[in-house]
């Protein structure tokens, strides 16, 4: 992507500062668009592109089942993947910048453990109701209840983290506290697992696999605005994020309100990662791999470039992972989490092995 390299052409007056050309952006957008189209075309059931186009353009003559598959299953899935991938990448970028740690991922503050705990409570907890969990008994077990519970779990962890963040100066301390919350959450879930019935355990485990496919249009109607809001918040924080790259001392000296920025970063990243986890289950690796990939390809740590790049790349990568998880042409579905790990880990390894430590000053 040579046009992403800085512009070195001479001009009158001071030469222009390094920037990313419009051509590169269009290239990235088209990659994402191609992934979107591919996602629509590929799935467990083989549907020829012609038919898909027929469905999308509202033509008659398509069997109901196929029409439903495309409109009710694949299309929302594709949008969910795009938004989810962008959200996770962005949350990962923010965490990596805030903690200045290349290994930070969106869940480093224990958000996904909170979500998992919420889900476990909903699915397992049999508080004196015999064998049925509370929600099973009251008959509102279902996707929405699950999402709500996971969201509440994440939100609880978030509130605690924010309360602690107010008192703690040192960011590393916050990181450790978040990690510990993660462990506590997982431990509690394991305890609950002991008392689970088979079907409940299977439900929980299926949730941990992660999936973009369980999201209907109605849920997307709530999911999308939240994600878009979170992404917009990230865009607003671009300037302070850049300043934070230099360190909190420098950032303060440039006029950045470090505390408020930190709050904003944590809030934004947690909303993004918490919402994605609540809706799609915990999805790993995208949050770490996408920022590193973007840093490497764009050859910069400048958030003005990275924020949009991460959004586009995250969406594309998530679409790719979802496509692979569908194992097109076969009947089975691979766990999304495994696919993202299989894609993400080599990316991170590749980035590191190329000798470019994208977050270090280098020696």
């Amino acid at each position, binding site marked *: 992507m040579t046009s992403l390299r800085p512009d070195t052409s001479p001009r009158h007056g001071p030469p222009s500062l390094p920037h990313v050309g419009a051509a590169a952006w269009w290239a990235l957008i088209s990659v994402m668009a191609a992934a979107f189209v591919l996602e629509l075309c590929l799935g467990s*059931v083989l549907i020829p592109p012609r038919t898909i186009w027929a469905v999308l353009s509202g033509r008659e003559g398509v069997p109901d089942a196929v029409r439903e598959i495309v409109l009710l299953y694949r299309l929302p899935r594709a949008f969910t993947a795009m938004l989810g991938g962008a959200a996770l990448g962005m949350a990962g970028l923010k965490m990596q910048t805030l903690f200045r740690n290349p290994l930070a991922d969106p869940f480093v503050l224990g958000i996904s453990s909170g979500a998992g705990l919420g889900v476990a409570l909903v699915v397992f907890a049999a508080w004196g109701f015999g064998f049925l969990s509370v929600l099973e008994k009251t008959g509102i077990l279902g996707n929405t209840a699950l999402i709500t519970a996971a969201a509440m779990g994440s939100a609880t962890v978030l509130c605690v983290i924010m309360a602690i963040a107010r008192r703690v100066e040192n960011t590393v301390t916050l990181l450790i506290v978040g990690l510990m919350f993660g462990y506590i959450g997982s431990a509690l879930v394991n305890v609950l697992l002991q008392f689970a019935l088979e079907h409940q355990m299977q*439900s929980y485990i299926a949730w941990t696999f992660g999936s973009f496919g369980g999201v209907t249009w109605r849920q997307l109607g709530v999911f999308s605005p939240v994600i878009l809001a979170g992404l917009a918040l990230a865009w607003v924080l671009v300037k302070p994020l850049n300043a934070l790259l230099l360190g909190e001392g420098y950032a303060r000296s440039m006029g950045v309100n470090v505390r408020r920025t930190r709050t904003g970063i944590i809030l934004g990243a947690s909303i993004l990662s918490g919402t994605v986890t609540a809706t799609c289950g915990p999805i790993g690796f995208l949050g770490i791999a996408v920022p590193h990939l973007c840093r490497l390809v764009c050859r910069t740590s400048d958030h003005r470039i990275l924020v949009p790049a991460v959004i586009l790349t995250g969406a594309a990568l998530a679409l790719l992972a979802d496509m692979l998880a569908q194992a097109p042409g076969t009947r089975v579905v691979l766990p999304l989490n495994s696919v993202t790990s299989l894609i993400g880990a080599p990316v991170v390894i590749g980035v590191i092995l190329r000798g470019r430590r994208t977050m270090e000053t280098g020696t």
Partner: protein
Amino acid sequence: MKQTAPEVRKGRRKNLAPAMALLMALLAPAFTPSGLAWRAEGAEHGGERSDLPGERSTNLFAEKTCLRYAHGFDISYQGTYKRIEVRRPWRDASEGFVYYLVARGHDPPPDLPRGAIVVPVPIQRLAVFSTTWTAFFPMLGIEDALVGMAGCEWIHTPEIVSRIRQGQIQEIGDGGRGMSRKIHLERLTLVRPEAVMVYATGIPEFDQHPKLLEAGFKAVVNASHMESTPLGRTEWIKFVAAFFNREAEAERVFDEIADRYEALAQKTRHVAHRPTVLCNAAWRGTWYVPGGAGYIARFLEDAGGRYVWSDDTNAGVLPMAIETVVQRARDAEYWIDTNQARSLAELLAIDERYGRFAAFRSGKVYNNDARVNARGGNDFWETGAARPDLVLADLVSILHPELLPGHRLIWYRRLPQLTEDAR
């Protein structure tokens, strides 16, 4: 397959299982009682003593067993002992288990392999890990021998329940639920069982038998769940019976059940229309559906339905992408077994796209949770496992109500319709 001592071959029936089945199916109503009598006679004849010196007591087992549907185990009678081989205890098992059931008061045979499990029969104290076999006990009249059970709270069988209430059967589980339930070894020791019957999965975290063997218990692995036909599963009643020398009871009981089953299946064999049936429900994008060669598929076929994946050749459970399910099963006429959803509203809550399924729209959605007790025990897996003929009746009544008028569903129920405002 079966090795019989030369002495007893005289009175033995030959293995004519398929032919017998056909014969019985054709002449079932009239033939059955006399058939049973004939077999009993044959068994009795087979109880001749040998005249060879030193082999006076070689034919202690008057009643033998003959398997018609089950392929997972094999019993051979060697005079003073029986040798039971469980062939394939789990899907990828490379080898099975062998048990030597020695008549009480007699020595085990010499030259047994190391670590061979020898169980004196008839057993007087048995502990059991799964509720699937519970219903066999009263049918064989051996419920007094049952002293330990994992999951006492889930039992429906009245005789067992009363024994539990009277404290004659102790709970041997550790309080865990579902797959993580394990045998509580201390409690088991207090029960002093002569043998413990468990199932095995091949997954070390869940298998009980290695620990039991280590602790010195005689663990017997029952692999009835590996059978791919409903009758095959139930035929393991004979496996259980062998430990109590109740083969005759087992034969009688099973034949009755099998005959009724076959008769019912015969009724549906030539129906004009086989409604398509969808099974199970999904969780977040993946359905786990029964394979086309498994016992559920067999049930549906015998009930006169057509399972939408009847062309599949797996016996186990298949993970299935939801798209594939939609493509194949969206237009299925019936939806049977919806896992945990207990009403159409709940199904919708799980995924509102279910509402577009044809079976949903017409309200032909059934689940097998009509007999579930307060603690979550589902009788379908208990009595239902022992009475496949009744399960079949339920299914036939669902799919072809005209064939069984007046039948009231036992374990299945139709999911309550959506109320107007819930729709």
